[in-house]
């Protein structure tokens, strides 16, 4: 391997151990970890940082990095000698929420972190029994986390608080937003998540990997397939299983169907937030038609129950594929026409223009992912940068816009729709012949990373399996884990309270995917 990643690693003096050509592991001493990751993050992108703790082994930190123009990932691990480590946040802003999670869930303290508040746990009594991990041992649980005390972060004459949630106005997910306002303007938003914390990763520990796919698919309903796929691919990498071309095409096809129903839904919500009920209804029709097509293709409207280790359970039949091919033209035409109409509707554009701005500098400091990142000039997409499934064999563009406002995010949604429709057309035109697939013959011990581009962005899953294929540790880093962080910042960038529905719709982000 002589790619950009290998050069970066050798410059840092790392000994790389390669897994299948697309991921390299390196172990470093605990004391050097933070300094090394900070140094690497100047030229690489920190995509994940997480901890693994058990009673018998020392606490371990893992950093996941990627560099531009190299399809490989770098996984850097370090065993800590104590429960403290030097915080990266001052050098690498993207590490901030990862470190808060490490502190909250594993009790490892990032020394020097500027704001170590809780993210998910609300009322954890100090004597709460520790949560068991997959080895039948108990994980170390911090004793310091207790109920959250909230102090006003903004004070001043005329500043008041306006709480919204956790029970919201319509059929929406539970999350709490505390607005600080002087009347109309949003001065700041205090975001409280974690209401839906189901502890999915903990629940899966000890299960055999093929039985845990259904949990990965239920991490978030609207990105069920992408999360399931990233998880399944991580398991396949550990087990050394090959996937047949027809399964790879099915995976790419359904991944794009999921993007279609998400983006149709996102634009529908944007239209609703701006009072354009006809537009909302039109995109609602498109979303419902996509969900029904998904049902015909694989038996589930949200594409669940399709994946298995080593392939897929269902290959879309010739009839369903032909029907989809006929629909693609219709959807493209209708979607194009609706986008043009929206772009000519001033009441729509006025509400989106300069609303919730995320500047490109901010976006790159926080390594934002998906449409939110691409609307702030971040040109990343794992379908192109780290090709998987059948994405290596189709042509598509990754649209980016540099404005960083809600209108830019709308433009990214509508351009991505066009690209997804194009990808589906190419996949259907070159559909591979059916082939028997072996699936898993023997489980192997080890750990690996899997990835997929969810509708909301880059989705990473890391698994550690034992010799029987049981999960010792599963780390899910879906896009919402990254993209909730800038949400509060975007709300506070000179917007009014009435902009809030537009901001939320333009982010199109799931609370369940963050809470997990």
């Amino acid at each position: 391997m002589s790619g950009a990643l290998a050069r970066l690693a050798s410059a840092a003096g790392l000994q790389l151990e390669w897994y299948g050509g697309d991921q390299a592991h390196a172990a470093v001493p605990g004391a050097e970890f933070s300094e090394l990751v900070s140094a690497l993050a100047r030229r690489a992108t920190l995509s994940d940082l997480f901890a693994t703790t058990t009673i018998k082994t020392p606490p371990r930190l893992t950093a996941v990095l990627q560099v531009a123009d190299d399809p490989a990932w770098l996984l850097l691990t370090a065993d800590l000698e104590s429960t403290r480590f030097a915080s990266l946040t001052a050098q690498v802003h993207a590490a901030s929420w990862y470190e808060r999670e490490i502190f909250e869930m594993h009790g490892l303290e990032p020394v020097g972190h500027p704001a170590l508040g809780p993210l998910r746990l609300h009322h954890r009594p100090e004597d709460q029994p520790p949560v068991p991990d997959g080895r039948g041992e108990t994980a170390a649980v911090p004793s310091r986390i207790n109920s959250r005390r909230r102090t006003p972060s903004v004070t001043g004459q005329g500043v008041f608080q306006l709480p919204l949630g956790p029970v919201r106005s319509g059929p929406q997910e539970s999350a709490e937003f505390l607005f600080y306002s002087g009347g109309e303007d949003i001065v700041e938003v205090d975001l409280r998540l974690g209401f839906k914390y189901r502890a999915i990763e903990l629940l899966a520990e000890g299960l055999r990997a093929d039985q845990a796919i259904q949990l990965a698919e239920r991490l978030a309903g609207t990105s069920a397939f992408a999360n399931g796929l990233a998880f399944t691919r991580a398991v396949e990498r550990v087990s050394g299983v090959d996937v047949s071309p027809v399964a790879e095409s099915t995976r790419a096809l359904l991944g794009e169907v999921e993007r279609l129903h998400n983006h149709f839904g996102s634009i529908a919500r944007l239209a609703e937030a701006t009072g354009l009920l006809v537009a909302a209804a039109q995109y609602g029709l498109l979303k419902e038609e996509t969900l029904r097509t998904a049902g015909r293709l694989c038996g589930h409207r949200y594409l669940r129950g399709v994946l298995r280790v080593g392939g897929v359970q269902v290959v879309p039949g010739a009839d369903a594929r032909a029907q989809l091919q006929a629909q693609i033209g219709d959807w493209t035409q209708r979607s194009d026409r609706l986008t043009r109409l929206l772009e000519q509707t001033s009441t729509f554009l006025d509400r989106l223009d300069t609303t919730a701005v995320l500047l490109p500098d901010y976006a790159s400091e926080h390594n934002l992912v998906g449409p939110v990142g691409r609307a702030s000039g971040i040109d990343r997409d794992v379908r192109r940068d780290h090709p998987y499934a059948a994405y290596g064999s189709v042509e598509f563009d990754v649209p980016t816009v540099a404005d960083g406002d809600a209108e830019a995010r709308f433009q990214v949604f509508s351009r991505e729709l066009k690209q997804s429709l194009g990808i589906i057309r190419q996949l259907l035109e070159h559909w591979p012949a059916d082939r028997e697939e072996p699936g898993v013959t023997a489980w192997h011990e080890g750990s690996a990373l899997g990835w997929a581009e969810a509708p909301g962005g880059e989705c990473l899953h890391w698994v550690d399996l034992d010799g029987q294929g049981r999960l010792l540790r599963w780390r899910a880093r879906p896009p919402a884990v990254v993209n909730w962080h800038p949400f509060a910042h975007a709300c506070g960038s000179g917007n009014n309270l009435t902009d809030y529905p537009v901001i939320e719709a333009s982010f199109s982000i799931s609370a369940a995917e963050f809470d997990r």
Partner: protein
Amino acid sequence: MSRWIAKGLRTGIRTTRFPQAGVRGEEGAPSAIRLRWQGLTAVEGLEAAAICPTSAIETSGTAEEGELRFDAGACILCGRCTRRFPDAFTPVENPRVAVRSRDQLRTTLRWERGEAPAPVALAAAASAVQQAGLRLFRHSLHIRHVDAGSCNGCESELQMLSAPYADLHRLGLFFTPTPRHADLLLVTGVVTENMKAPLLETYAAMPAPKLVIAAGACAISGGSFAGGPTTVGPLDRLLRVDAYVPGCPPTPQALLHGLLLVLGRASQGYRADQEDQGGA
């Protein structure tokens, strides 16, 4: 703006005639699974329980003597049993799958001395009061939804109720932002520790008489997350539930059926242990 009005008019009416007429376009995506006990041997029953990822199919005993408990309320429609044993576990495409009583989602088979499995007892029929529904809200019902810890799949389907295909307003059904105006509490998701208090507060803030619907496998039984360390469990441990809508997530039509069922405007079309009853 006039162009939008023209666009809307040109599109015409796309709304289904549910519940008056059958539903089209939902083929392939079942609303529930039914157990046809005649199509199952004891050995197959034991194997089905082993591949079921939730507690929807559970067995005890051996192939000689044992028991199988099927719970459609815990079924997440993963399709493993229907693909493996298509004679015994059959997909239900009729969206009228909501039921008034939890028992109607369950059935138990027993086998002894190596004989074929047979049902122990049929689930109790809904009581007269339950069948009648609450006539008070027949023509206008205001719904307060609470996400008690879902995956966002149920919310996505609930949002589709307002889209043109399902269009719940034509049936006199409305979502309301405030519990003070709500007649019905629609709960999705397994109840998490963090959502227990907001859920109970919302219920307490509703004026009596009030109805409760548990929508989706998580709210009915815990689904995939049953027994999790940060969850309280199924909704009916906390509140009296008037109707259960199975599914993962329930389809928009199944949700509409559940709403009409508690109002006495639709009849039950599904029982875990019986052939399709049709029903409207």
